[in-house]
């Protein structure tokens, strides 16, 4: 009754679009990644140089630094988003007057364009203009200037990301929490489990797939963040994440070959990381079926 050919036919428009606009550019990047190609160099053609680009990036301090920064950014931002998102979702499972109004307000940042998020936060933090440096200086005598202090720039981007993306985590967690059946929780209560035990042994296992999926999506998007951080700090110190580093190599320096090889490595690392999470998610599902 279910002919695989029909299945492929249904899948084909998606596959064609993704092959054309996703996979073909990937092949091109893969090809360029093994070449030296800088439009403004003396020899502006493509020169095959094997693995030279990859040898170069292993010793490229700027690149390694950018990977470290991206990792710190992703870990701190996603970590806080998951904790905050869970707490907020938990607060939203109760009923109280005005709940949906609070929820709608909380969802708003998710809808702001990344480029506008960057602009908003830049308005908040530029010296001599934004309220944040002004009040920090006045109340806490703290010198806050993201252009000069890399750590402050990193933390500002983390806080900005948390502001922007926590609502997404809250919504997925809320969906996950409301799909948990009531009986096991009540049963555990009757059996004398305390709040923490109920959370740890009942809620969390039920929530695990949603949690992992959310983390997966956030990791994927956090690693390729460019526009909002660029708008915030203009690629200043402390915010040179991998995405932005690639941007700087490819555009101002027009070093396409090297830029492509960095992209490939970044893409590879993202895929490996996500593959592990994917196995964790789908492995769990298979376990449920058996």
């Amino acid at each position, binding site marked *: *009754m*279910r002919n695989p050919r*029909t*299945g492929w*036919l*249904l*899948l084909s*428009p*998606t596959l064609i*679009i*993704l092959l054309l*606009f996703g996979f*073909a550019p990937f092949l091109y*990047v893969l090809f*360029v990644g093994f070449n030296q190609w800088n439009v403004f160099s003396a020899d502006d053609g493509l020169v095959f140089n094997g693995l030279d680009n990859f040898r170069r990036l292993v010793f490229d301090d700027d690149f390694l630094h950018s990977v470290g920064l991206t990792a710190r950014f992703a870990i701190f931002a996603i970590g806080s988003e998951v904790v905050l998102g869970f707490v*907020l979702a938990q*607060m939203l499972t*109760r009923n*109280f007057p005005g709940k949906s109004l609070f*929820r*709608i*307000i*909380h*969802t*708003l*940042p*998710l*809808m702001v*364009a*990344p*480029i*506008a998020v960057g602009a*908003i936060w830049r*308005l908040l933090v530029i010296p001599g203009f*934004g309220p944040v440096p002004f009040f920090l200086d006045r109340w806490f005598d703290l010198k806050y200037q993201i252009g000069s202090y890399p750590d402050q720039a990193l933390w500002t981007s983390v806080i900005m990301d948390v*502001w922007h993306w926590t609502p997404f985590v809250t919504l*997925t967690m*809320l*969906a996950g929490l409301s*799909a*948990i059946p009531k009986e096991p929780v009540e049963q555990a209560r009757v059996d004398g489990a305390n709040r923490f035990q109920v959370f740890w042994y009942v809620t969390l296992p*039920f929530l695990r*797939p*949603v949690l992992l*999926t*959310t983390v997966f999506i956030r990791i*994927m998007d956090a*690693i*390729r963040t*460019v526009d909002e951080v660029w708008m915030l700090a203009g690629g200043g110190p402390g915010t040179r994440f991998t*995405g932005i580093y*690639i941007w700087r190599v*490819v555009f101002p320096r027009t070093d*396409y070959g090297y*830029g492509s090889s960095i*992209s490939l490595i970044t*893409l590879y690392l993202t895929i490996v990381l*996500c593959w592990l999470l*994917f196995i964790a*998610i789908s492995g769990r599902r298979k376990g449920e079926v058996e």
Partner: protein
Amino acid sequence: MTISFRQRAWRLFVTYGFWIFTTIVTLLPIWWMFVVSMRSRVELFGRPNLSLSRFFVENYTNVLTDSTFQRYMTNSVVVSTSNALLVMVLALLATYALSRYKLTGRDNIFFWLITNRMAPPAAFLLPLYIMFTRTFRLGDWTLYDTQIGLILLYCVFNLPFAIWLLKGVIDGIPIELDDAAMIDGAGLWGVLRHVIVPLAAPGLAVTGILSWVFAWNEYLFAANLTSVQARTITTGLAEFVTVTGTNWGELAAMSMLTLIPSAIIVILAQRYIVMGLTFGAVKE
């Protein structure tokens, strides 16, 4: 179980305290943007003042009467709406195929679809630029600077997300319902129309909304693959920063105007967003 009045009052107090605090934190940056959008260039500098001193709407009228802004806005509406509709249809078909048919390498295809969203955009812009300006052409017509180009390109990051979201939803619909409909004589379209679409409606709605928002908000591709005709609103936003030494008031006004359509959609569709975002991970 009875809870005393005192306990209940305390609980309400904590709940509202928590939510009022959250609301302030959430709204403060947006409020500041609103305040900035209501000020003239001169008023902006000096001591930062978080209160709204007066309604100065010139920034808004300047932006709204600008024909460039109007064109960007139209483009954004057309591109994100068509993209969202296209993504909903294609994702529904693809997910149905992945969920119901025994296709070879099904899990690998599914994962490959998602990897399309992971590509760091900067390096991929170059091949896309070449494709848009040279590869796809009919006479003088190229994909560069066209709405259709952006509509198709946005599928690259929206389709994987949509398929993933719908996968759980459609997997959660018992296959027996399909079979029953088929026995009653429904064909593939009948099953899709009368069984899958009604049952997956919240999931489909959420897919559409989020695709719309992602497309509406996209910046890097739009900035580099369009020049005049098909520019979108986010590109316009960034232009304010680079061209004339940043007119913050107008930039803020424009950001507010960009936020309004997505905010309206989200407010209208609140209910579906929570119902549809389960990623189908929790099943009975």
